């Protein structure tokens, strides 16, 4: 039955309701003290920027991922600590809207829409992304837009789609730097696309290649076209990264500052602690061990919709190559960063890609019971998604699944963030007092306490003086405890503590939590 209301008009209220749903969930978890490190990192940067006392340009210009930080910063006008959570709820809703809107003219739009809606409502990964304040929503958004534009370029061979794809790719890299490596795997895909777009009277791909290489004019044209597309797609992201590195180098003396500094990128610490193999003491047995070569299987289990996509793409070589390129990219990430767990956002990208594939598939209609099959796979994906997240190697992902279950079944079981108690205590300290802290690790406390006024951190000019002589400059020192998984990444570590004592500084514990000790300087 055809609806009397236009598709687009239906989409607005549905998106609005979805946003409220995400926001309500995010707030429910936030109010119970469930936070993500990335969300708190962005919140702390936004607070630092608003409250001043630091070089604002470093924060605005070098905090990475840049785009995700900007969106959090935008929402910090509502609530400084909750801002990243609003941003992720809004961002995930926008992602839903863009995907749902792009199926408007598809013959199976009702089936597809149902699948998209079910996924965004119930898939654990999408819920996690929407309510955790993490930046994965933006990565998925630009990834989807990039893949869609790339497929459209293959279909229509227009400069608009290829240049838009390039812009989205640049945005994607500024959302998650690891995607820069995807460029490597797209090189052969672009070559195949260029070859297919050549007017050669051969249908077999190998015959086409042979013909192209043996004809001087076609070989020249193929070479020129391939090179031109390489430049169009990759010149922008590569030069943007180059320029960004140059600015990092000029401004901080380190071109990799945005990747390696814990003050610019929360992953600098997390990837060497929580997300690092062998670091976590409470390793759970993963659904499938995260090892190179098994990643592909893990992806297929996580996103079985890919199998469906392969069947609709069976005759389209270049489109199939894109999917292979992404698998290779994931395998490559496991080889390049063998000890760092892949976050669930990377896997979710495959689900988004599947919608991109279906939208651009030409022989979709040939499959019988397509809609029913698709919906069945969507529901299957909810289950596999849950199992994967529940046994994820990334502690934060497991934590959210657990707390989510608690939120639904028994809210009393929710464990508030341990840093909350320390932040609460600090909030009761008079604002005229100063606390020496290193926000490389203490950003969570600063973000939860919603103010940085009491803190003296490394970005401030007097920090070094305070570190050398705390008695003259600060009233308190916030130090990570021995249980704190990040203690080795802080300037205020045990060595500093020993030095303070050696210098005759009298430090009195005024508050202690599992991860933090607040000393009063006498």
């Amino acid at each position, binding site marked *: 039955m055809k609806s009397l209301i236009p598709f687009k008009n239906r989409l607005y209220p549905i998106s609005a309701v979805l946003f409220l749903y995400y926001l309500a969930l995010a707030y429910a978890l936030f109010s119970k003290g469930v936070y993500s490190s990335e969300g708190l990192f962005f919140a702390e940067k936004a607070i630092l920027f608003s409250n001043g006392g630091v*070089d604002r340009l470093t924060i605005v210009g070098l905090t990475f991922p840049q785009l995700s930080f900007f969106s959090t910063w935008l929402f910090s006008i509502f609530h400084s600590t909750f801002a990243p959570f609003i941003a992720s709820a809004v961002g995930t809703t926008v992602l839903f809207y863009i995907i749902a809107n792009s199926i408007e003219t598809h013959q199976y739009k009702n089936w597809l829409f149902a699948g998209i809606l079910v996924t965004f409502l119930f898939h654990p990964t999408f819920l996690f992304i929407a309510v955790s304040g993490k930046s994965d929503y933006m990565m998925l958004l630009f990834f989807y837009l990039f893949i869609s534009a790339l497929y459209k370029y293959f279909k229509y061979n227009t*400069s608009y789609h290829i240049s838009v794809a*390039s812009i989205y790719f640049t945005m994607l890299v500024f959302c998650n730097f690891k995607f820069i490596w995807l460029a490597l795997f797209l090189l052969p895909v672009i070559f195949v696309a260029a070859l297919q777009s050549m007017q050669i009277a051969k249908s077999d791909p190998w015959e086409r290649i042979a013909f192209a290489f043996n004809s001087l004019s076609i070989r020249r044209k193929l070479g*020129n076209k391939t*090179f031109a597309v390489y430049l*169009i797609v990759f*010149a922008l992201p590569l030069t943007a990264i180059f320029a960004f590195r*140059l600015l990092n180098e000029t401004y901080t003396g380190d071109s990799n500052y945005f990747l390696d500094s814990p003050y610019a990128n929360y992953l600098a610490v997390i990837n060497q602690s929580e997300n690092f193999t062998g670091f976590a003491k409470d390793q759970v047995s993963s659904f499938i061990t995260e090892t190179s070569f098994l990643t592909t299987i893990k992806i297929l289990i996580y996103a079985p919709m890919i199998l469906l996509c392969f069947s609709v793409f069976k005759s389209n070589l270049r489109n199939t190559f894109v999917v292979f390129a992404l698998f290779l990219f994931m395998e490559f990430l496991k080889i390049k960063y063998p000890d760092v767990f892949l976050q669930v956002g990377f896997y979710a990208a495959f689900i988004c890609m599947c919608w991109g594939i279906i939208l651009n598939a030409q022989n979709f209609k040939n499959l019988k019971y397509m809609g029913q099959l698709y919906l069945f796979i969507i529901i299957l994906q909810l289950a596999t998604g849950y199992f994967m997240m529940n046994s994820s190697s990334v502690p934060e992902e497991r934590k959210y699944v657990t707390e989510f279950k608690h939120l639904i079944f028994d809210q009393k079981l929710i464990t508030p963030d341990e840093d909350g108690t320390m932040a609460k205590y600090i909030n009761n300290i008079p604002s005229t007092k100063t606390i020496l802290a290193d926000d490389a690790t203490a950003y969570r406390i600063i973000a939860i306490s919603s103010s940085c006024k009491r803190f003296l951190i490394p970005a401030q000019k007097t920090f070094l003086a305070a570190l050398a002589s705390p008695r003259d400059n600060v009233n308190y020192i916030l130090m990570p405890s021995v249980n704190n998984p990040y203690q080795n990444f802080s300037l205020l570590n045990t060595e500093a503590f020993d030095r303070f004592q050696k210098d005759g500084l009298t430090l009195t514990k005024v508050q202690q939590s599992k991860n933090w000790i607040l000393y009063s300087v006498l």
Partner: protein
Amino acid sequence: MTDTYLESLEDLLISAGLLTAEQLAHINNFSRSNQLSFIKIALNFGYISRKQFKKCLEEQGYVFIDVRAEQIDAAVMSQNDLMKVDGNLILPLRKEHGKLVVAVASPYITDDLIEIQEKFGMELVVLVASDLDILWLAHKLLGEKYVKSAVFELLNRDPDSSALVTFTQKQLVIIFSLIGVVVVALFLNFINTSIIINILMSTFFLIAIVFKLYLALSGSKLELYQAVSKKELKGIDNDDLPVFTIQLPVYKEDKLIRKLIWNLQSLDYPREKLDIKLLIEEDDDKTLNAVKDLDFPAIFEVIVVPFHMPKTKPKACNYGLHFSRGEYLTIYDAEDVPDTDQLKKVVALFRKLPQNYICIQCALNYFNRNENFLTRMFTLEYSYWFDYMLPGLGTLDIPIPLGGTSNHFKMKNLIELGGWDPFNVTEDADLGIRAFAKGYKVALVNSTTYEEANNETFNWIRQRSRWIKGYMQTYLVHMRNPAKLIQKIGWKGFLGFNFFIGATPITFLVYPILLLLFISYLVFDIQNIKTIFPDWVLYISTFNFIIGNILMIYVNMIAVFKRRYYELILYAITNPVYWLMHSISAYKGLWQLITKPFYWEKTNHGLSKVTTTQNQKAE
């Protein structure tokens, strides 16, 4: 009597093998329907060459005189009508011994000659002369009324739209006040004022380029859109086609005349429905002689533009308007190679579009793109300009600055607009804005005219300085009353106009300053700069400058796609160098805007060694 003589001319031409009976019939039909004399048609519509005709008459014992050296009687001349002379090629010169001395292109008696005899009431002494010399003399002596109209028509009708006054009093007050404020601010607080200027300049630079990227992307969406399809083109009936005027303003283009004829001959449009006017300046004997010396038939009429300042192309075009017969009109440069089906496409599109579309702009590109660095860069620039920017402006409903040639007008609307502004050196861009302000629209058609890219640096700078000066002129003219402009073209059009026409010269002027700052700071690490500009200022300006350049290079890269000029893509990287050349031209243009605003920097054509055929072979 007339018939006997006419038959003689016909017999002469047929017996000399210069015309066939079929051609003769065509000429007679054409003559009857257009009120043009037999000889005018024969010499100007591709039937016989002037050289052949002269030789033929000389064999009959006729002697060609130099009519330009003949004595002229002002009283006789005042009784002549230029339009008539232009049509029948008969020019009464003086009275001598009770007879009227008349210069004619054909010595055979015609109705026109009898009419003149009756008008003056005396016997005629006929002097045979070259039709071109007759035209030269006629236009020189009788063309004053028309040339005055060509120069002052717009000024009289709509003085606010004329660029005769470069800076209005109000504009001068604003400009000097602004300079004064900046100077005072620099005295009072040098560092903070410098910081503000720096940030404003670099941010403006970035915004202007981001706007260009946005336009290019908007335009690139239309890449697959065919304004006129092949099917529509096939459905056109030649009998239904209107008369199409082609104006060819030339100045010292003697080397290009042959090529011009070849290019015009390849146009797929009925010859008798083409009204082609070669507009030659009075002092341009080189081109006139080149036309005289052609050993094959010409397919255009020559119009000699009498001397009058300013000596600009728009003045010549306005003059040509008085003699044009077409329902539609277009302008080509001498070296232009339009797509053969261009005129038909334009007619088809005009018929499809609503009435308020009065102009159709074709894309311009270059046939000698691979000649050297300059031609390659020029090709990149034109590709993104005509294939992406202008369609982008059209999509966003922002006034389109028309390109120099291949803009096709509805004649009656063009006249209603007052033609081109002869005081504006980018009269085409100005006309686009004026048309938009009157509620008219410009459309783009999927047809290209290939031109000769400037391949010589100084010639390029001359041409570009004129273009940039023209943009400055156009900007100043239309910004005399910003409120009125907003009322006419709306906020979107106003912002688009400012960012497209206004921002273009400013970005070129600002560019070398930013570059200098960038090099001093980043490359040479000059510490003194840091004492004036704090790090955050340098950070922002460096960011704007780098991103601006990257985006501009990127826009150039996109340009190769639609045309499949993939081999040019790497040249886009050298865009910053190309921009420096723009900056040189911009400063030259600015200087000329102040010192000689109407001076037309002539671009030399015909420097390329590449022909269209060679280029096609290379492809």
